[in-house]
């Protein structure tokens, strides 16, 4: 009906998607060069909250971890999704994942399994899945998590 997007703020610019590409595709965070503290998300351009150093190096976090807590959306909340996430309906499974480095990733999502199969404490691995559209119309992709099959 309308050729132009109704909500400008709902669609992130392609340049932002590009800036975050290493986080989304490889789980790339930061390690403080001064005190060694690991940080997620990346603190590139920021300051270490532990020692105030501004010097970081990239750190690729483990792609496997443990499901710390989860919440399947269909369990309770039927709410309008954020702009750009309508295609996922009410089937998303929200989660926080604990990595072997002691860092938590979350909020994040569990995919490729039924909600009833999701249990806190289960081993999960990172997968790359279709995410949301960029402002130029391209689809972008991001990390999500799926159970590790024995």
């Amino acid at each position, binding site marked *: 009906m309308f050729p132009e997007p109704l*909500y400008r*703020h*709902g669609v*992130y610019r392609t340049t*932002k998607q590009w800036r*975050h590409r290493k986080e989304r595709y490889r789980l790339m965070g930061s390690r403080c060069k001064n005190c060694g*503290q690991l940080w*997620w*998300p990346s603190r590139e351009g920021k300051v270490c*909250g*532990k020692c105030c150093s501004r010097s970081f190096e990239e750190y690729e976090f483990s792609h496997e971890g443990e499901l710390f*807590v*989860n*919440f399947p*959306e269909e*369990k*309770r*909340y039927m*709410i*309008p*999704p*954020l*702009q*750009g*996430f309508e295609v*996922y309906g009410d089937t*998303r499974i*929200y*989660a*926080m994942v604990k990595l072997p480095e*002691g*860092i*938590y*990733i*979350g*909020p*994040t999502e569990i995919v490729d399994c039924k909600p009833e199969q999701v249990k806190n404490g289960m081993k999960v691995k990172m997968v790359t899945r279709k*995410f*949301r559209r960029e402002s130029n119309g391209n689809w972008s992709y*991001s990390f999500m998590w799926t159970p590790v099959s024995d």
Partner: protein
Amino acid sequence: MRRVAIAGVGITPRSNAYLADADRKSWKQYVVESCYNAIENVSKGLDPKDIQYVVANYHGEATVEAGGIGPVISDTLGLHPVGVTALCANCTGAGVSAHDAYGLVASGLYDRVLVVGFDKRWDMLRFADKRAIGGDVEYDCYMGFDHIQLQALLQEMAYRKYGKEKILEALVTYRIQMYDYANRNPNANLYGVPCPIKSKEELMDIWELEPGSGEINPDFWKRLPGAKPVEGASAFVLVPGDEARQYTDKPIYIDGISYRCNSHLLSSQMYYPVPELVGYDAVDFAAPRLAVSEAYKMAKIGPEEVDFSEVFESHITSIIPTLEATQVPPEGKTVDFILNGETGLDGRLPTGTDGGRGGFGVTSGSNQSDGIYEAVVQMREEAAGRQVPKADVCVVVGMQGEMASSAVLVLRRN
């Protein structure tokens, strides 16, 4: 540093009757109404032109149709060329405004500062997108998560910490209390609305889908009334404590105030590696604990001296940590404190006496100034049917977005 007092308070009602024509009102009308109510509430008189500075806050950037909003507010209030600091800190924003305004008066820079918190709901952003700006937007919103979904994760963590059945029972207890208080406050959103829950047992008997399964019955949620988002504003006037009685016979003094920040990202709250925060996880809500401790220290009081509280409690899990932060319930016994009715009118710590954020109405930008308004009304003994028996000392605990920060005030009558 000078002592600081509240000389006048103002508010816009959140009753259904008042909000019936909310679509006809702009945020500016709410700001004007609450601010001029506060000025007129200064019982010995205050000329609006004597206001020297304004500190204002709202939910977050882009929630109203204005940018660089300070001069707009100054103009709206007819106060040009008075300066206005405008800030955003979601639901604890008005506490941050109070904190900054306090400094302006305590330092001696100004003698009459107006503080206003306001919120207009859906003029620009739709519901989901507005909620999303209550977090670490660069990450949460970008990844497609909004406030309620993050709250749901916190809720799951809280079940683990406190026990699911007990949390739900505390929630039902508090919701019933919310209706009780709100029906004693004509300004509250739920005023005149009977509580749909006839007894606690009515819901607790059905909370579990199958006995022993631990799965919550969807009907439980359907029958449990939630906190309703509304809009409006509240305001107050700060003056030097030693001059307060020139303005009013009933000054209320701010004897302790603090503002503390934690990460706005839940995963970072799990391990933030600084000594003050590292011992807490996301569901502990570190910020209000730190802020309350600092405010008590400043006021030179302990929790035993606190008579009542106004805390941020619109979410299922926020009531427990914010109450726990007051240090009045015994450590680790906050759920029992609620279940035993200690937050009711005749309890140890009456809390949310205006109906609370749930019953009065959740108004992000003014949540904490609404609490301050109620505290002042109680301390002046003007709360009629919801008057608490003892109102000498009150603690007001705010909370921002994903529990990222908290502003706290300790108010004293004398």
